[in-house]
């Protein structure tokens, strides 16, 4: 890993980091911010200080939901790249919670064929599907 900017592309972040960056991006209303490319580390830190307490409060109020979403999404990450990379196995980022929920229910009912996704969809409750769909949507808005 050579450059600081590399660390800040969404392709190199853990699930939690992506959530934090999202929160920061919301906080300052700058869509480009989440890419991190072109922003210096110093600026990133400055902004993170500015929004630090915001993140903390948001984190605490949504902690249970976020922990659940992180843990459920970790299951998706065994096959689906959650960094936007694609090829062969379809990406699940950018689908939006409604579309993702519909897809999961269609796999569960066998309306959409895939025995791998059927096993996953059957193992999740409706509430868990909603939680993971909401969580995944936050990764790619």
């Amino acid at each position: 890993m050579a450059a600081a900017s590399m660390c800040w592309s969404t392709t190199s972040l853990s699930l939690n980091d992506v959530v934090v960056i999202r929160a920061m991006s919301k906080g300052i209303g700058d869509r480009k911010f989440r890419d991190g490319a072109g922003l210096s580390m110093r600026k990133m830190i400055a902004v993170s200080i500015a929004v630090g307490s915001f993140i903390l409060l948001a984190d605490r109020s949504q902690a249970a939901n976020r922990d659940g979403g992180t843990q459920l999404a970790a299951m998706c990450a065994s096959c689906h790249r959650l960094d936007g990379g694609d090829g062969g196995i379809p990406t699940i980022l950018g689908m939006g919670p409604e579309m993702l929920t519909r897809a999961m229910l269609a796999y569960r009912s066998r309306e959409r064929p895939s025995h791998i996704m059927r096993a996953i969809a059957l193992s999740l409750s409706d509430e868990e599907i909603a939680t993971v769909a909401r969580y995944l949507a936050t990764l790619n808005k």
Partner: protein
Amino acid sequence: MKSRTRREFGRLTGGLALAALGPQLAASETKARVVVVGGGIGGATAAKYLAASARTIEVTLVEPKPNYTTCFFSNLYLAGLCSLESLTHGYETLAQRYGINVIHDSVTAVDPVAKTLELKSGPKLPYDRVVVAPGIAFNYDALAGYDEAATQAIPNAWNAGPQTQLLRRQLESMEDGGVFLLVAPPDPFRCPPAPYERASLVAYYFKQYKPHSRILILDAKDSFNAQDLFLDAWERHYRGMIEWLPAQFTGGVKAIDVKERSVRTASDTFKAAVVNVIPPQMAGQFAQQIGLVDQSGWCPVDPTTFESKLQPGTHVVGDATNAGDMPKSAFVANSQAKACAFAIAATLTGSERVPPHLFNTCYTFLSPDDAVSNAVSFKPAAGTIKIVDNFVSQVQESAETRHRTAREAHSWYAAFTRDTFG
């Protein structure tokens, strides 16, 4: 050039944010310490998800080797369809991006009372929790004439690396018309379809370069994983090339003669140009050494936290576990490691914990363009882990479906190794 790491950023932002609540929380000495022993799929996944799920946990990964070569997909290498380098993954990303302290060393002793691990090079590592992922060891006692030294002439090729390379060289230098003899192990063993995938892909290689050669499988079992799918594919792709002899026909393999390159069963002796013995297996040596193994030869674990039933505070993930219905596969190791990491994080940091979802997914190549898959969900029940749903490819699937599954398998490999090694 020193690069900024996630961990450093975590200190900067997390530290500052925490400072608002109380500076003492940010001090590094209050961090909980988790040491992961073993850098295969289970160990690497556990380390990554522990580091990613809680900034207040300091994660150390101890692994003697500088990198890891995946067993899954190594049958493609044996057939000459990919390089071993393309299956080899380093620990740099785990160290740099996730701030994991990667130590290339071996653990020689554990003191579960003082909660310290002793490294071969001398230092002691204190821990609050330890995750052990030692993989498998081979039970050579079960096969007369075969031991560690014998693997230099007759490879087991069941840990990807030099053994796989040796078997590849032997297959390459074998003359057309030779016999490749594969000794398949008794249950349970690492990756149930893999011996038969190996036979399939070696047959694919023979068909192209040594079409008069044959493959003989001497099995310790009377049936095997996805047998109908394999037998169908062998008939379609490799008719007359692969012969499978179950234990009930041969009485089982009794002894190996390394000099003669022959295998003796209860009824016969089989001589071959190339022999691959996949020995009976048990939990990795380290698990045995520190007392995590019961009379089954494997490590009994709690089905939700993967904490050892024999040693509180120590968790075991991956092939070494006796995890009920869960087979020994890379996917299972990854799935268990995540459940284990979230359970440890919940204990050490108070994070919320959802019930674990445990899965196995398995892609198997019958030929490079003909692959099948299997998906199983599991659930902790009555102190063990039970299968909930089990879906598998069907014999009558179209060639197009099989081709799509093969392409999907390669994409899965890329996503899965990235999920594990960062």
